[in-house]
């Protein structure tokens, strides 16, 4: 009796979802639930590869520090699971909620940056973590997302002003300077660079006049140079990375060890688990320098694969953003531009540091490095991107698409539109008839 009921139910399900794979659901189901297929594939790839590599890189360090060689591996595995949950949960949160509460997000971000200075734990000379019992929360990780959440709403609200008025253009920079000051006090210059990049990227994509933009970029570069110059150890680091071998047992130690890891890797690496550099030679092998271990154990092949996954991930985020923008879903678009830039810049800086192209900064490799805050925030960011993709695809513009884009709906109006949760009975998801159709409007407008 019961079994026949189940069979009937399954038949009904399959009738409703004809493209549902059996026994495994096809990616379509994922897309219904989450949004973007390739985004998910690259994110899962990075998370999985990251877990494997963190496990491998941390074995000896974990053994030495805790007596349990799997200490970091298990913890990282749990973080990855939590990250996936966060990703799914993030994709279920309607964008309008983020938009509505974006000022509070900003308040939260600033508050965290203040709190960390008051009660934060000092590790390696920086106060970056707020102890929360089982997890140490990295304040700047949360703050940068808060900044993006707020900026996106600001840009949507003041779009025309930002594009035309210098004051509206300047205001976000003032906000940025305030947050930047707090970050510098930690100090966490990596986070500052990431936040500034996100701001610049979002402003650029919001249509700021290009000469304003160039001016700001020049100013930012000069400012950063001044900050770096004011602190001698920054200068030392700046100088070291250009020739680490000159001071291979001093300031250049970590970098030379990282470079050696790459050199050892050659084409296909020493094999998983065979890294030599992780045997205490390369400090932070499972956090900031996990990419070097990838290059050592999996060689050029592995390193370029991971880099390729990042390229795919960022490209998908940017495409989701552009699609949303073209569909008039501006809040989601700016959110995705910001997130895409954050992930791109963070990955660039981390890998750049690993290969000796950039001065040493304490930045993790998103989705890969060991570290709970970074992983969970990355998961949430990707969940938000998924949500943007989902809402963009299920959103039917009232007016049929024509050459005139002025008839696209206002972003605020559209965000008030009821968006039923994914998987509900309403035909939320419009399967594109041709893949290309999604991006047919990437052209000039």
């Amino acid at each position, binding site marked *: 009796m019961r079994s026949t009921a189940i069979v009937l139910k399954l038949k009904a399900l399959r009738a409703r979802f004809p493209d549902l794979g059996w026994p495994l659901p096809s990616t379509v189901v994922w897309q219904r639930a989450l949004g973007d297929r390739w985004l998910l594939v690259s994110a899962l790839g990075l998370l999985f590869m990251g877990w494997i590599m963190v496990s491998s890189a941390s074995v000896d360090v974990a053994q030495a520090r805790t007596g349990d060689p799997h200490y970091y591996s298990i913890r990282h595995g749990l973080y990855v699971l939590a990250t996936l949950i966060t990703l799914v949960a993030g994709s279920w949160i309607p964008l309008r909620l983020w938009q509505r509460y974006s000022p509070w997000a900003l308040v939260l971000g600033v508050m965290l940056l203040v709190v960390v200075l008051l009660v934060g734990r000092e590790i390696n000379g920086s106060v970056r973590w707020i102890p929360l019992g089982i997890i140490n929360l990295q304040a700047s990780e949360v703050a940068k997302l808060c900044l993006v959440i707020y900026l996106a709403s600001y840009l949507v609200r003041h779009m025309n*002003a930002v594009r035309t008025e210098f004051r509206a253009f300047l205001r976000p920079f003032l906000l940025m300077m305030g947050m930047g000051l707090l970050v510098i006090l930690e100090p966490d210059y990596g986070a500052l660079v990431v936040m500034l990049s996100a701001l610049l*990227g979002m402003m650029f994509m919001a*249509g700021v006049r290009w000469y304003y933009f160039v001016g700001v970029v020049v100013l930012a570069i000069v400012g950063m140079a001044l900050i770096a110059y004011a602190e001698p150890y920054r200068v030392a680091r700046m100088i070291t990375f250009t020739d680490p071998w000159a001071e291979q047992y001093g300031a250049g130690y970590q970098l030379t060890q990282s*470079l050696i890891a790459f*050199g050892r890797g050659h084409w296909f690496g020493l094999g998983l688990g065979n890294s030599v550099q992780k045997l205490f030679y390369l400090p932070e092998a499972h956090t900031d320098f996990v990419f070097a271990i990838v*290059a050592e154990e999996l*060689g050029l092949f592995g390193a370029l694969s991971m880099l390729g996954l990042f390229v795919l991930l960022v490209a998908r985020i940017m495409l989701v953003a552009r699609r949303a923008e073209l569909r008039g879903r501006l809040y989601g678009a700016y959110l995705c531009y910001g997130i895409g830039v954050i992930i791109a810049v963070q990955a660039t800086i981390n890998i750049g540091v690993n290969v000796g*192209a950039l001065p040493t900064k304490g930045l993790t490799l998103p989705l890969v490095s060991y570290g709970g805050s970074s992983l969970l925030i990355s998961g949430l960011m990707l969940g938000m991107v998924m949500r943007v993709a989902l809402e963009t695809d299920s959103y039917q513009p009232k007016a049929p698409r024509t050459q005139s884009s002025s008839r696209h709906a206002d*972003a605020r109006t559209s965000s008030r539109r009821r968006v039923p949760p994914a998987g509900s009975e309403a035909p939320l998801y419009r399967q594109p008839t041709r893949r290309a159709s999604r991006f047919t409007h990437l052209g000039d407008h």
Partner: protein
Amino acid sequence: MSGHFKPVASWRFYLLLGIMGLVAAGLAGFVVWLNLFEHDFLKQQGDVRTLRVEPITAHRGMITDRNGEVLAISTPVVTLWINPQDFPKTADAVRQLAQAAGLSPVNLAQRLKRYVNHEFMYLRRQMTPDEADAVLALGLPGVHARDEFKRYYPPGEVATHLVGFTNLDDQGQEGLELAYNDYLSGEPGQRRVLKDLKGRIVRQLAVLKPAEPGGDLALSLDMRLQYLAYRELKAAVQQHHADAGSAVILDAKSGEVLAMVNQPAYNPNNRAHMDPESLRNRAMLDLLEPGSTVKPITVAAALMSGEYTPDTIVDTRPGYMRIGGHTVRDVVDHGVLTVTRVITKSSNIGVAKMAMALPEDAVWGLFSQLGMGRATGTGFPGESVGHLPPNTLVDRAVMAYGYGLSVTPLQLAQAYTPLADHGQLHAVSLLRQDKPQSHQVIPPKIAREVLEMMETVTQKGGSGTRARIPGYRVAGKTGTTHKVGSTGQYTSEYRAFFAGIAPVSDPRLIAVVVVDNPRGRQYYGGEVAAPVFSRLMGGALRMLNVPPDNLKTLPQKDLPTGSLPQDVKVAE
């Protein structure tokens, strides 16, 4: 704010994508450059930091007696060392470590302070692996282990003078451990290993040169005889309150040293309280005037000259004799003696007269041929060569009864080998030998005659009756000499000798016993050394299953009823 939404121009989007793509390509370029083009340089840099060539300790060879019983053996031990740079500078860590390693915390803290700028300090050497594991289990940083070997000497002080010992670094310091150090220690090998930053070996990559273990050394010693000799000599030295003593047993057929003991001795396994006096292998290092024990050799030289036979008459009256300013004395006036009786009574005047009557080279030449004043060729470190006096008339006369020359106890035993084995001199050997090195120095007939003369020493009326062994015929010679003091003058201290051969019918063993400065009422060789010889030789003959050749002297109750000499011979 306005309904006039306009997406930004797509060049911005493509510019952003383009910049990102360029950055990604740049990073990819860096990775390719490092992984492929800098590969050789970086790999070499990495190897410089991580690859080390480590020695492989070669196992030191074993030293055994002739039957394979172990005299010296190496066992693995662990030496712990510290890199003071890495070791935590907390009092707690020092206390923990000191407790686990069994050291004084105060002392360890002081040492750590002294070596604070160094990168190496021994924590404790040569611990048993179990002890070392307990320390390593603490997991304190900077504490490292090194495998070494420790030498153990199962017989302890019984064979130590001959075997010697090694130092903490497993290098021979004394005795045969020193003499055969190169042979025993072998060649340490080399291996290439991968080390982590803490200096621990992660992987062995290659053995560059395998360690060649040292060779095993089989000595000529027979530990059964060695233990026996040790026991008897030690007892005698204690009984007579003597300063020192030596005993040597030779195989009469080959010259191999079957036993060699000295008193005082030391325990090579624990040399913490070693007295330097006990260190010497006196049987090979100490030069002594052999006294009367060389008289049989003088007699052999006389017989070889053809001018004497065992029955030739020698007048020793009146018991003293002046030769150039020097007076030769006998203990009592022995009167007119045959050559045999000269030996029996141990008459100094008798042998002196014979020596003077012989051609000038006869005595000196035979002494020299028998190895006195010559190296024995054993290669033992510090072995004494001995000394023969210039070949003048007086010296010849004095030498005839054992003064004016110096020999080691081993040389004396070697000089007896022709008397025991048909005139064949066997070069002594400390190693087990398959083929003795020997040559004829005395005609077999004369050797036999001298041996039979020496037998009278242990017979009734002889000076060495206490050397008798029930069941065996024993030939020997007593000796008692004044010791030379530090001023070069003879003192009132004595040295008691007995040198003997048994069994006379077919000699198997030669033994020399020397007791130095017996302080009791007895000091004659016949009183002090002869009883030791008797017990030593008797025990040795029985242990070697040498058939008795003199059943008359056995107590009757010891004989199985109706037993005959033939039965005993069958039993061999």
